[in-house]
């Protein structure tokens, strides 16, 4: 790996200031970034290690909001009683990530900001993500690539927690040199047509500090279903994060967000609208599955994601009925 300086900032202010240095990169758990540095996919001059910052690794409830520090490990997050109880979709998403070792090190902010696992990108092909100007998957091995929202890059967003956070209507607090801003999770992620080199709107020198969840009613049911390519340690082939606000057996409102199918967490507004005011029956769930894949645009080798997505949406809904 290329030689780099390591900085352990005292506080957030210093961290943000250090991140303004040329070619500085923020490190959370480092479980993915250090591997990328070894592979020369990232060649930072400065690593700003955030793990020593205090107060950004906890879950706290205040008023109408629950705040989760970006540095909380995925393992801690998945075991947090408040999250398990009221935001099950997020706890399940966090515990579906990778392996116990990675969940012990990897952070929530790191998972949300994780770079794609497209094998062309990870093998150093000169693709959009590596500073090039093409996507090799289009005519290549695209088994795991996007069926929605692709072009010019066809990566799929790798995060399990991101679809859960979008489904929960989370807000992301971002700190940068010029101050802080808070934006809805859905606005954080950006399609390749906006910028094919990146997956979100985080500017250089900015960090995702914390995530804010609206308080949920007890009538909310949520879950995360992930299809893996083996029984552990793969990213989602297809996943679904579903949050339903129920009135007895009737669904008042629904949020359905897919992972593994698009370059961003892929929300399904039409499906959500269909579900509002419905009982989640076998038939309704099946229709939702059909509607979920409307507009899908598969590549040569990922057409199987269409029946798979239908099945995942249907089953995830039924599991909450």
């Amino acid at each position, binding site marked *: 790996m290329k030689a780099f300086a390591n900085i352990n900032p005292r506080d957030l202010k210093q961290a943000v200031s250090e991140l303004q240095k040329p070619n500085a990169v923020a490190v959370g758990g480092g479980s993915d970034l250090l591997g990328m540095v070894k592979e020369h996919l990232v060649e930072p001059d400065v690593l700003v290690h955030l793990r020593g910052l205090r107060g950004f690794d906890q879950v706290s409830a205040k008023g109408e909001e629950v705040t989760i520090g970006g540095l909380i490990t995925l393992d801690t997050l998945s075991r947090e009683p408040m999250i398990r109880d009221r935001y099950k979709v997020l706890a399940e998403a966090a515990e579906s990530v990778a392996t116990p070792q990675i969940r012990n090190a990897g952070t929530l902010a790191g998972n949300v900001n994780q770079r794609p696992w497209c094998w062309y990108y990870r093998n150093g092909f000169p693709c959009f993500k590596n500073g090039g100007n093409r996507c090799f998957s289009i*005519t290549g091995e695209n088994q795991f690539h996007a069926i929605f929202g692709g072009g010019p890059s066809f990566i799929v967003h790798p995060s399990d927690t991101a679809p859960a956070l979008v489904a929960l209507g989370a807000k992301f607090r971002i700190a940068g040199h010029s101050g802080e801003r808070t934006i809805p999770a859905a606005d954080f992620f950006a399609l390749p047509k906006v910028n094919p080199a990146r997956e979100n709107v985080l500017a250089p020198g900015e960090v995702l500090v914390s995530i804010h969840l609206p308080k949920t009613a007890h009538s909310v049911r949520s879950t995360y279903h992930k*299809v893996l*390519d083996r029984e552990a340690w793969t990213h989602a082939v297809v996943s679904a994060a579903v949050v339903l606000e129920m009135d007895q057996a009737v669904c008042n409102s629904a949020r359905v967000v897919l992972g593994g199918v698009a370059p961003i967490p892929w929300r399904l507004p039409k499906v959500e609208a269909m579900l509002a005011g419905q009982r989640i029956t076998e038939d309704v769930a099946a229709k939702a599955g059909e509607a979920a894949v409307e507009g899908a645009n598969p590549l040569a080798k990922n057409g199987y994601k269409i029946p*798979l997505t239908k*099945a995942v949406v249907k089953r995830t809904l039924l599991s909450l009925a």
Partner: protein
Amino acid sequence: MKTLNTVGHPSSRIDALLRVTGKATYTGDLYVPGMLYARVLRSPHPHARIRSIDLSRAQALPGVKAILTHENCDVIWGSGDTRNKRYLFNNPVRFAGDAVAAVAAVDRHVAEDAIRLIQVDYETLPFVLDPEDALKPGAVEIQPGGNLSPNNRNERQPEVYKRGKIDDGFQAADRVFEDHYTSSHINNAQLEPRVAIAHWDGDHLTVYTPTQGISNCHTEMARDLKIPPEKVRIVCQFMGGGFGNKNQNHDFELMAAMLAKQAGVPVRLEFTRKEDFVSVHGRWPTKQYYKVGVRNDGTLTAIQLRGYSGMGPYRKSSGGIGGIEIYQCPHVERSVYPVYTNMAVSANLRAPDYPQSVFGLESLMDDIAYALQMDPLDFRLKNMTRKFNDQLAYTSIGLEECIRRGAEAMEWKKRFHAPGEGTGIVKRGVGMAMGSFFSNMGRSSAVIDVDSKGMYHVHVGVTDIGTAAKTTMALIAAEELGVPLENINVIWGDTDRCPYSVGESGSRTTTHTGHAVVEAAKDLKRQIAEKGMPQGNGMLTASVNTNPPIPPNVARYSFVAHFAEVEVDTGTGRVRVTKYVAAHDSGRVVNPLTATSQVKGGATMGIGMALHEQLLYDKASGTPLTAGYYHARVMTHLDTPEIEVHWIETEDPYGPFGAKTLGEPTIIPSVAAVANAIYNAIGKRVRDLPITRDKILGVLA
């Protein structure tokens, strides 16, 4: 079968405590004072001529001590190719991952920086990945003389085996079935990474290396470096697996030795995990075209196979497509084309010729049984081998018992059903397959000393690649000497301290070296009977070289039948192995504890090969996409079912106490058993490995 005192009883490994407490020193744990660290620069291109290499920037980097390229190193790696001259550094480079240069420097980081400063001017050449494409007219020539690798008689002809007359066999058939199958390149994926430390003391070379055979490595290092064998010492005290890709000597050992020579200090050369996947070797990918004739009563009349094995650009191993010998059949014709391609090198991986081939053969046999409305189990019982190639009597054969006992444990009669039967979304099915593996006897040696305290020091040249070979040798010695296991001290893994031993490949260690231990123990017992136990500082020593013959009119084989039950989710294409039964005839089982582990390991590798493992290539660039544990989808614990192991202990007149081979048979039928279970579950056949979700959803669509 007569019960023995030590052999046949479950015993923990004699080094178990060292291994589990981290006290065992693997090669990667060794540091020699003053040593340098070395890294390798590899070709990004699948086929390219090197016009020039500019080392000036690398040489100028402080801390760089030695650099090797094809321009200053003409060492031929003899074991790297049995047909062509394969240098340590080749020009042209013939696969993405072929070595271009090696650098030794004061630390890892300087060595890594240095290889990135080497500027190579490549002229890229056309490349070919598919073995059939490589044989087409106009395909780029990868090795001089063409892409069909020469056969054993050095002819540019496929390897052909024939018996009977294949046309007569098809004439005699009521029905003829034809189908074709493909299998992927699979990496050995052993846990221990590749690292060698080479140290010259004058003209005397010591190499610490994870090798499957210190003796082979020893003679081959001497051969390739053109130095007398007595000037070479190979040490491997603890070994973390190889599954066939640490047989013989390897390029990394030669590179370490040459760098150490150039630098004048010891050198430690390390491969990354990715290099291990791409640049060493894996199982050869195959394309198999079968045609089988059968009578309506299920009797086989003809088996024909035309097969292609992609060997990568260097011919390290057979490229065989085996397994037909498991069937009794009067007319057989098998033509196998080992072909050069620009993919990663293919060579030995646990039962090299078999699991991919048995997948093809047993898939078709299953289809035939179903087409004839026979239970696939009965079809195998009817057609299974009785004599090797219908000619030679087996020294022992428990195949029928393997099938019957395995079927019973699987509750075959209860679980078996018509293909695809059942109405639920999640479908269950069972499948089985069978196999055999050569269990010859051969050359090895052992030395046993006894001292006045009654300790027996057993010197054997084994390294123990995970099979518990050291423990096996101790058990065999204790049994034959009639002493408790605590009185046995095994000395292993060092060519300065151990006699020749056969390499730990071909599942031969128990039979070959175990037999030598038996003979040495017998000799020592004779000496003790004659002279009495040694007194004071006295020692008695027995030293044997053995090469027991097997009569030419018999064949010695191990046999196996595996049974899998799977659940296939027809909505998501997910396959789970829910029950697995392995029944093995390996003669007498020396240590049931570690033998059971062997079976579990082999079956696990086979399940991975059936369901998700592969080294996938980008066709446009000719470069691999799935190197490493993550992308290659190697098995995890959660993928591994409970594996039930049954021993069919036949009495065999040869081998130590009648032991036959075991390590490799464990993977042979596993891929096919899973594939056949998937077919039974969903009633659709996937003929290309691995049987991934996209293929399952594809055939169900």
